């Protein structure tokens, strides 16, 4: 008898609600099954060394009685229980007394009996189950056994909650790190971009401003044109400054070369695209013929290079009609000190006429494209002493063929600062 309560308890603790709700329901079930008037459940806080009240349930008979919110280490009956390491039971003669087992515990005021069970799993303490009765009563050994079992179940519940919290926070940390990484990559991409932009924008600016200055020299100082020209010179001047600022801010740094395992790098990049690839229903085929091609490269820069290729491939295949196969194939191999990487898609392809232009800055066929993806990729590959070429493939898509030197001496060694 009495064991039915265990099924109830397991049911309750299995449901996904908050710890407060769960423990409250457990208390209710306990009060239904055992001769107690109040059931309180505490959580042990190992760092603050205190028992903190999670929830309390009273029978009508104990209405108005509250429980102590917090017991510090060695305080009251929870303190005694912790000290002894097992359940304690105490009785008082008078209901208004607060002294039990040689300690003071305001929690027993208004009750004649109290029993506490440690919520333990193995040697680890997770909390306390604190039951109080209006009437003087001694728990039977059967009841104690069942309550012990319930306590263990409660301990497991609290432990699960703690583990979940830890997991959640480490997941959040993971996401934060990943976001941080993404940002770092963007900064590097910005560096590549500004190098490309500087030339494209700066030259015309120098031109406009240079000729405006010449025009000024040849214009009468009193003429209104003089003022207009000043206006042009000033504005273009601030644009020039801005461009110089951007360039020196993310100056095109020397490559940070180190041994890079190609397979690992490519897997890393593919992982970033896990979600977009899944959403676009694209199957990824990896053909790493030589599993450990190691090259000397700047991994962060190379990632950006491949990042651009893969996002282009995804965008191209996203335009296909639903029923057409979508394959992204990444192949690697090595030959005579050269690593070869092919990035192929089954997308909409690039006409031979356009293939000549795709590496030009600002060439784009996309409404929201910048046309800087491929020039940046091209820059990065070139800096590594490599080569990138585009071919139409038999699946009506395109294949980008990249060659990279394996050995460091083939790489353009830039002086680092």
């Amino acid at each position, binding site marked *: 008898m009495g064991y039915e309560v265990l099924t109830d308890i397991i049911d309750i603790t299995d449901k996904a609600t908050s710890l407060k709700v769960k423990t409250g329901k457990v208390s209710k079930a306990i009060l239904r099954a055992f001769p107690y008037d109040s059931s309180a459940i505490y959580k042990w806080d190992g760092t603050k060394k205190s028992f903190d009240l999670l929830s309390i349930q009273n029978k009508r008979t104990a209405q108005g009685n509250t429980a102590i919110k917090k017991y510090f280490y060695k305080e009251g009956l929870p303190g005694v229980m912790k000290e002894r390491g097992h359940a304690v039971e105490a009785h008082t003669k008078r209901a208004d007394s607060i002294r039990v087992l040689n300690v003071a515990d305001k929690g027993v005021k208004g009750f004649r009996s109290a029993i506490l069970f440690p919520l333990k799993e193995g040697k680890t303490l997770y909390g306390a189950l604190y039951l109080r009765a209006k009437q003087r009563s001694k728990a039977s050994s059967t009841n104690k056994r069942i309550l012990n079992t319930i306590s263990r179940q409660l301990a497991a519940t609290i432990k699960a909650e703690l583990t979940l919290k830890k997991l959640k926070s480490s997941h959040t940390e993971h996401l934060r790190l990943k976001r941080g990484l993404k940002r770092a990559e963007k900064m590097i991409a910005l560096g590549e971009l500004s*190098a490309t932009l*500087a*030339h494209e924008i*700066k*030259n*015309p*600016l*120098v*031109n*406009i*401003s*240079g*000729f*405006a*200055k*010449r025009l000024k020299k040849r214009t009468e100082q009193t003429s209104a044109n003089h003022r207009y020209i000043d206006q042009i010179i000033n504005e*273009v*001047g601030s644009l*020039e400054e801005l461009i*110089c600022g951007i*360039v*020196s801010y993310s*100056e*095109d*740094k020397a490559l940070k070369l180190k041994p890079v395992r190609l397979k690992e790098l490519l897997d890393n990049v593919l992982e970033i695209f896990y979600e977009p690839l899944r959403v676009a229903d694209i199957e990824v085929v990896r053909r790493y013929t030589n599993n450990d091609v190691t090259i000397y490269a700047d991994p962060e820069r190379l990632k950006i290079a491949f990042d651009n290729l893969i996002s282009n491939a995804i965008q191209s295949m996203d335009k296909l009609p639903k029923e057409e196969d979508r394959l992204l194939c990444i192949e690697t191999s090595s030959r005579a000190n050269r690593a070869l990487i092919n990035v192929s898609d089954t997308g909409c392809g690039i006409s031979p006429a356009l293939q000549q232009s795709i590496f030009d800055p600002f060439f784009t066929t996309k409404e929201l494209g910048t046309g800087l993806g491929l020039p940046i990729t091209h820059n990065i590959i070139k800096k590594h002493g490599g080569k990138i070429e585009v071919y139409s493939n038999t699946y009506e898509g395109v294949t980008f063929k990249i060659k990279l030197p394996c050995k460091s001496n083939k790489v353009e060694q*830039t*002086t680092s*600062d």
Partner: protein
Amino acid sequence: MAKKILVVDDEEGIRLLYREELEDEGYKIIDASSGEDCLKCLEEELPDLVLLDIKMPGMDGVEVLRRIKEQWEELPVILCSAYPHYKQEFGTWASDAYVIKSSDLHDLKEKIKDILKKSSK
């Protein structure tokens, strides 16, 4: 006699700007629109100084610089670029000066003056 400067830049606007500004300073200007063009010009007549853009399609400025220094070791060359960072890479060796492109040609004119003074000594 007026000193002769060869301006090498793939952009017509920049060539025109340099020509006009430097002619105002009393120099004689010839120009070339590519690295290959520049080398051809040098074969025909040797200027007192070359103003060389780094980033050009085809043979880039650094390659042109290398060839100039192989053949005409004494010929002063000023490298020009929109990128400040090339300075550490190439500016210190081989070329006689390095300027970052700007509409303010004051710096450039000073460098030209300096170099021509030195080389005519």
